[in-house]
């Protein structure tokens, strides 16, 4: 990289801030003479991120760094591209003239940048932790790495470890006798080397060889850094282990400290996301309940007033008022029925299957809704899932309404003891499926059977037959479907409804 001959841009020029060397209140980067010349800058003008920014290792002082992450700042990238291999990023790299070492440092810091990027986009804590562990392992040259978080009862350091391509569960007690436990309890970095040849100093941290025995591996050097949350509480440790005769350097310690911070950020982000989702859900539920409540109150209001008018009109034989009020009541009863269907439309399973999918899953969902009622009435509720039914094309709301009505009727038809209701699904033709609902009640007589059958022979909406069957009939007719009733007096009834899939979503 060839440097431009002109004086390179300093941060205050790039950001056009008011804290340059000539300002009445210069930023520390502007008058830090000790940093003069780094990356060819004036004072700290081209190393601001490590003096007053997020890589300073202490407090973030610069207003610009308080507003954004230095690693994402265009100025850092500009300096890096201008300086090429001479680029100095960290205090760790200061004074190092070996280009190879500088390059390694850059690679390490790039790993932080990558993690920052992932933290911004990921919501999955386990995945993020796995990535941080992998980055930590790579940049320190360790063979094994793991993040262990304090959880469970009794609280212990728990996490996973990749060993010979397999994921092993690790649980380490929170006690000073293990190196990881020591790091967590003492809230300090533990860096052990030549583990099998060094005797533990009294009271100091020691690697528990039991773990090597447990996982059938050998640890020569071990590094554990405590993970602290924003309130400085230890929430876990990040560990590295090496089987080779190598030790972890102070640079490695520095990086691990920062990887621990990344893990803490990931954990906090996860908590924040969960809390936000929970808050949003509660707000949505609140809003829905408020809307429902308003609607129900209006309906109840009409029912109360209507009932009052009818009572009074009955006393005076005022048929005209009775008729007028009854028509209004009728409309509000319909509103109530529609409202209940609107509520059903919010059922997550119904929404999930709005364009078809698993008929068996929807049937199971309806069965589960009636489970409690069936148990209370000592009725056995069974579901026989057809094997070739799914995936199926259907309108979930319509199928849901049919199932709810038929299962509800079947439960009502059951005898007082030893009732059995069975719902089954099957595929009757290539593009046709069938749902049947049977009970072991007293059956229905011929006259009633004929009345029900008539419902299914017209496309006009029917009213007044009760039992929700007009709803089922309207839906079956809508899809050019069929309904069959098998009934045996004293033995029960089976309703079978078939739907053509090619019309299901028409």
């Amino acid at each position, binding site marked *: 990289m060839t440097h431009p001959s002109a004086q390179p841009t300093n941060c205050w020029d790039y950001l056009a801030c008011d804290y340059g060397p000539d300002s009445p209140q210069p930023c520390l980067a502007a008058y830090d003479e000790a940093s003069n010349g780094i990356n060819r800058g004036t004072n700290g003008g081209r190393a601001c991120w490590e003096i007053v920014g997020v890589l300073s290792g202490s407090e973030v002082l610069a207003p610009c760094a308080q507003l954004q992450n230095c690693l994402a700042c265009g100025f850092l990238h500009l300096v890096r591209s201008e300086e090429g291999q001479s680029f100095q990023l960290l205090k760790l790299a200061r004074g190092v003239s070996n280009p190879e070492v500088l390059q390694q440092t850059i690679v390490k810091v790039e790993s932080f940048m990558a993690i920052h990027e992932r933290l911004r986009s990921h919501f999955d804590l386990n995945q993020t932790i796995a990535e941080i562990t992998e980055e930590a392992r790579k940049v320190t040259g360790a063979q094994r790495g793991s993040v262990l978080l304090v959880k469970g009862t009794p609280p212990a350091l728990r996490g996973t470890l990749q060993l010979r391509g397999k994921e092993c569960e690790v649980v380490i007690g929170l006690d000073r006798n293990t190196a990881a436990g020591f790091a967590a309890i003492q809230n300090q970095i533990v860096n052990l080397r030549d583990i099998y040849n060094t005797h533990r100093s009294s009271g100091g941290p020691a690697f528990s060889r039991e773990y090597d025995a447990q996982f059938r591996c050998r640890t020569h050097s071990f590094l554990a850094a405590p993970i602290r949350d924003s309130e400085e509480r230890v929430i876990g440790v990040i560990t590295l282990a090496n089987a080779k005769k190598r030790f972890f350097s102070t640079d490695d310690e520095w990086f691990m400290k920062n990887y621990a911070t990344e893990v803490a950020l990931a954990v906090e982000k996860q908590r924040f996301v969960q809390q936000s989702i929970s808050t949003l859900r509660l707000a949505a539920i609140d809003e829905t309940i408020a809307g429902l409540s308003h609607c129900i*109150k*209006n309906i*109840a*209001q*009409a029912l*109360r007033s209507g009932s*009052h008018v009818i009572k009074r009109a009955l006393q005076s034989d005022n048929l005209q008022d009775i008729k007028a*009020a009854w028509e209004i009541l009728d409309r509000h009863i319909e509103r109530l029925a529609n409202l209940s269907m609107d509520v059903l439309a919010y059922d997550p399973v119904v929404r999930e299957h709005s364009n078809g999918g698993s008929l068996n899953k929807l049937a199971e969902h309806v069965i589960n809704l009636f489970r409690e009622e069936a148990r209370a009435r000592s009725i056995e509720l069974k579901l026989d899932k057809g094997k070739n039914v799914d995936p199926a094309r259907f309108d979930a709301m319509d199928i849901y309404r049919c199932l709810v009505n038929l299962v509800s009727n079947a439960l009502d038809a059951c005898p007082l003891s030893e009732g059995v209701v069975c719902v089954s699904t099957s595929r009757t033709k290539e593009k046709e499926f069938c749902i049947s609902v049977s009970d072991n009640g007293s059956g229905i007589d011929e006259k009633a059977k004929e009345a029900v059958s008539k419902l299914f022979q017209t496309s006009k909406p029917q009213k007044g037959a009760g039992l929700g069957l007009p709803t089922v009939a309207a839906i079956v007719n809508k899809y050019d479907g069929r309904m069959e009733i098998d009934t045996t007096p004293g033995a029960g009834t089976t309703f079978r409804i078939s739907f053509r899939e090619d019309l299901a979503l028409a």
Partner: protein
Amino acid sequence: MAPTAKIMVVEDDLDEAKLIKMVLEGEGYEAVCAFNGKEALEKLESERPNLIVLDVMMPEMDGFSFCSKIRSSPENKNVPVIMLTGVAKRIHDTKYPLDGIMRAEADEYLEKPIKTEDLLQAISRLLK
């Protein structure tokens, strides 16, 4: 009891308005309906009601806006108002601006769904 009194029912739901009108007429009151605050304001001059039964949530002009308008009108400021609301018990938590609510002081608040007897008692009390 003032069975000949005229009561204006301001309610955007046609069915509810009609039913309340029927209830009132059944008790011997004369009842007129308006379907929002704006229409009610227009009708005030010609109808001159002795009492107003007023819904809160309405299009065009809500109950609070209507009420604050009549409270600032010299001719109508003393007309008793019964406000029917779904939120009477937590009126200050509603989306309506607080100053509007403060200026729209009704004589009685009844929470929906109201009991018809409560409405009739409130009317009777306010017309005395």
